[in-house]
């Protein structure tokens, strides 16, 4: 089964009437030879781990949540909801909080699901958990949305890259955000074309984002970039579902993203030798952390 581009996916839709979830399931069955029921259960397992990570990070009393720079923070965002001081609205604020929560577990060597990478592991679960709570979707619907997200991410992986070391942060947070945007459109009953449009806009919005981890750690700016990835997914889905299409088709946007990644200098691709990683304060952290390590 050929699944390298959005055009290939749309072919499956036009010829066989398959939606994004069904295309994902069919692809996985063909390439792994595992039966559909087992594949579905494997995805359920991923969703359960995702939810568990969100809950662990949200637990204010969890002593295991501790990074080398970032401390437990996500719960503060959720606590802000309903206080009169929250700005972004409940769903968006929750998506940010859950994305950050997952990252706080990841930083603390807790268990997460890479989606598509560990450094961007908060975006998709954070967005899905927030939209689930807002619209009372059941877990079966979320699992379908995860397949939809997987199809979008896989196309980007095949055509461009999902590695920060290769394509910068756009490849990690950008991809995760595109996956989340498509999955939200899927859940909200948008068309397969709208799902790809939302994914295309999500990538456009983060095009060129570099990978510049302070002290080489998956903490600053990675942690908070998961919040922008999640909220970007929601705003892209909202725009598309309101009737604003992507001017540039998804497949062309992905090629553009690859070209931008190929032109990115090494100092902006996860080497911690550019961007905010070389600011005065970043260097101070780097020195402190490395000294701490020698002990």
């Amino acid at each position, binding site marked *: 089964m050929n699944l*390298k581009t959005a055009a290939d996916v749309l072919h499956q839709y036009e010829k066989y009437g398959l939606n994004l979830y069904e295309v994902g399931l069919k692809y996985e069955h063909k390439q792994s030879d595992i039966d559909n029921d087992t594949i579905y259960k494997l995805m359920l397992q991923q969703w359960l781990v995702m939810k568990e990570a969100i809950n662990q990070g949200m637990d204010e009393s969890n002593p295991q949540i501790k990074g080398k720079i970032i401390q437990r923070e996500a719960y503060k965002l959720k606590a802000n909801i309903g206080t009169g001081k929250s700005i972004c609205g409940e769903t968006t604020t929750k998506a940010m909080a859950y994305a950050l929560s997952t990252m706080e577990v990841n930083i603390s060597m*807790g268990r*997460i*699901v890479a989606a598509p990478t560990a450094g961007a592991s908060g975006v998709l679960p954070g967005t899905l958990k927030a939209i689930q709570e807002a619209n009372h979707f059941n877990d079966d619907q979320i699992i379908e949305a995860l397949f939809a997200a997987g199809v979008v991410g896989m196309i980007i992986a095949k055509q461009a890259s999902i590695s920060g070391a290769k394509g910068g942060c756009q490849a990690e947070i950008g991809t995760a955000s595109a996956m989340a945007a498509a999955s939200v459109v899927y859940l909200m009953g948008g068309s397969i074309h709208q799902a790809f449009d939302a994914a295309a806009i999500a990538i456009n919005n983060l095009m060129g984002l570099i990978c510049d981890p302070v002290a080489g750690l998956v903490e600053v700016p990675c942690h908070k970039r998961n919040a922008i990835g999640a909220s970007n997914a929601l705003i892209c889905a909202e725009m598309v579902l309101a009737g604003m299409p992507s001017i540039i088709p998804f497949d062309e946007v992905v090629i553009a993203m690859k070209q931008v990644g190929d032109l990115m200098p090494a100092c902006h691709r996860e080497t911690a030798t550019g961007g905010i990683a070389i600011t005065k304060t970043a260097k101070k952290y780097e020195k402190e952390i490395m000294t701490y390590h020698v002990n």
Partner: protein
Amino acid sequence: MEQYSIFDIIGPTMVGPSSSHTAGAAKVAYICRKIFGRPIKKATFYLHGSFADTYQGHGTDKALVGGVCGMKPDDPRIADAFAVASDQGIQISFYKKDLGEVHPNTVKIVFEDYEGYSQEMVGSSIGGGKAKIIAIDEIDVSITGRYATMIAQHIDLPGFVANISQILANNNINIAFMKLFRETKGERAVIVIETDDTIPEEALMQIEALRNLNKLTFFEAIT
């Protein structure tokens, strides 16, 4: 173009923080432990490239020690791997070393058992939590753990491959991939056979009885 599973994108489930520096490292060490296949007294790690530069920040050291103790990349005990190694009586040491023209995330692990038998392996974390063992006792190999894997270290003499194939065929085992690696003609060689199904004990015993076999290991696919 690389073949992807949907679960390469929504996955793997892993202990953080980095798929290449944590999950992939644990997987490399886990596969190496399986290949060694004996009680481990000592494991010495030689870290290359990016592994050497950032190993503590990403918990690469804990992940490697965890893998050697038998933890898979999603095992929450990885965070306490050094304590587990100490409980298992495994002596651990780390060195930085330039391993030459290899992937930046590469490690050489030297194992030693209680009888003084030792073996060394080199493995790379090649991205997204995937692993590849690239050398066993200085013979270049390629082992990913994606399939059930049998590794036969032997002396490169005529008929050995035919004998193994015959035993597997007799036991109704379908070979997915078979690769032969050797040093020079007539000397040490390694056969790596990846299969769709598990290889039953009696087939392994028949292979073990073959002349010119030095060591046989088998492990199930590592998900």
